[in-house]
């Protein structure tokens, strides 16, 4: 009987294995997603901002990350640097020009594994109507059922750098730094 039970367990585990290796579709959890940026201000300090409205979809294959896919849409009007007047200015044609270009988008093109839980995610990033490749260094933090939501959840951190003038955002550069650091923290749920 004991042998039979072990056999059944092995069979069940074996049967489940191919399913676990399949890419799994997730939705970005906006409540646990932060897309932040750091920009140098005239050499005096670094200003930190974020985008408050982010949506996206992730197809994640933990067994073969190269098969994973990500697409993210950011509402440019949701830019927030904790200063209303500056945020108005950031929405103007000087910077994000939200009237003409309300969305920033990222669509993955290539994902390479660089370590046990790290990877390089390259995608097409579109801002101000200009699309350029952007590579993010991604750390896979954890997957499992969230004790809070009871949903299957995966979590990642990503870091990257872009040059805003590459996208036509030239005002104030280089005094307001051309190079923008990106800090992304996200959870996605099934």
């Amino acid at each position: 009987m004991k042998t039979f039970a072990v056999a059944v367990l092995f069979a069940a585990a074996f049967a489940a294995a191919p399913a676990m290796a399949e890419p799994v579709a997730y939705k970005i959890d906006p409540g646990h997603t932060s897309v932040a940026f750091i920009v140098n201000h005239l050499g005096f300090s670094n200003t930190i901002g974020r985008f408050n409205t982010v949506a996206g979809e992730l197809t994640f294959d933990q067994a073969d990350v190269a098969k994973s896919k990500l697409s993210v849409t950011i509402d440019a009007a949701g830019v927030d640097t904790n200063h209303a007047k500056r945020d108005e200015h950031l929405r103007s044609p000087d910077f994000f020009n939200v009237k003409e270009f309300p969305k920033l988008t990222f669509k993955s093109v290539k994902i390479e594994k660089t370590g046990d839980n790290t990877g390089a995610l390259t995608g097409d990033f579109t801002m101000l109507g200009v699309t350029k490749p952007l590579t993010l260094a991604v750390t896979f933090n954890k997957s499992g059922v969230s004790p809070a939501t009871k949903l299957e959840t995966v979590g990642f951190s990503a870091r990257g750098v872009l040059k805003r003038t590459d996208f036509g955002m030239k005002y104030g550069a280089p005094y307001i730094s051309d190079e923008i650091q990106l800090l992304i923290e996200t959870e996605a749920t099934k």
Partner: protein
Amino acid sequence: MNDLLADPFFQSGVAPLVLGAVLTGLARAGLGSRAAAGGVLLTFLAVYLWVIGVPALPPPAAMGKLFWAGVAVLILAAILDIGRPPAAVRGAALLTVMLAALYWIIGAAVSTPAEGLIALVAAVAVGLSVFPSTRVSENEPVVAAAPTFAWAAAVGGVALIGGSASIAQLGLALTAATGGFLLWNWPKPRYAWGASGRAAQGLVVLLGAVLALFSSAPAVALAPALLAPVFLRLAARLPLPNNALGRALRPATSFAFAVIPALASIGVALALTGGEASPY
């Protein structure tokens, strides 16, 4: 030196005033006195490149379109000033190109009745720029240029308070460049405010339309400045002596009258926004 060149107030004040005066002189020397106001347009383009950089071609955004529209009207106005076709042809050519530029720049942004009203007002203002009051002769350059100075000051001031730093800089640069043109023409008028001058005024309207439609600046604040030509007519009724002093005072008083509505625009913007500027 680098700090000075990067100073927004230098970029949009002293520098365009000097550039406006120098380029007006160069335009006069190279193209003749009727095209001297091309120096104002050239200064606008130079400050644009200085502050914002070379825009993409074709430009994806309204601000980039504004630059290339500026290049187009500079060339057209110079041709009109040099060639001197009949006045009706000059006006029709300039109006057609400026309205086409307006449509190109703001057309895609007009989707609500309020935005349509802004577009309509801008189109009328372009018309007033190209076909100013017949009582104002282009051979009275200070009087003819006064609305350009006033409107540019209003656009620059309103943008500075509540909208976009680059538009503020460009508006104030156009104000200063017009000032540079005026330095040649007061108290004694020397150069005509020809098609190039009218194109410069039309360019101010395009800049104001971009401010009104693409930034958070209160568009209504620009409305009082539109009355500058009316104030110009009021100034013309002032009883000034018909002698050398009177001839020197007439452009000065006209100019001062035209600026009053621009100051009102800035006052309205201050009242509506609280006056706080972006800390960048």
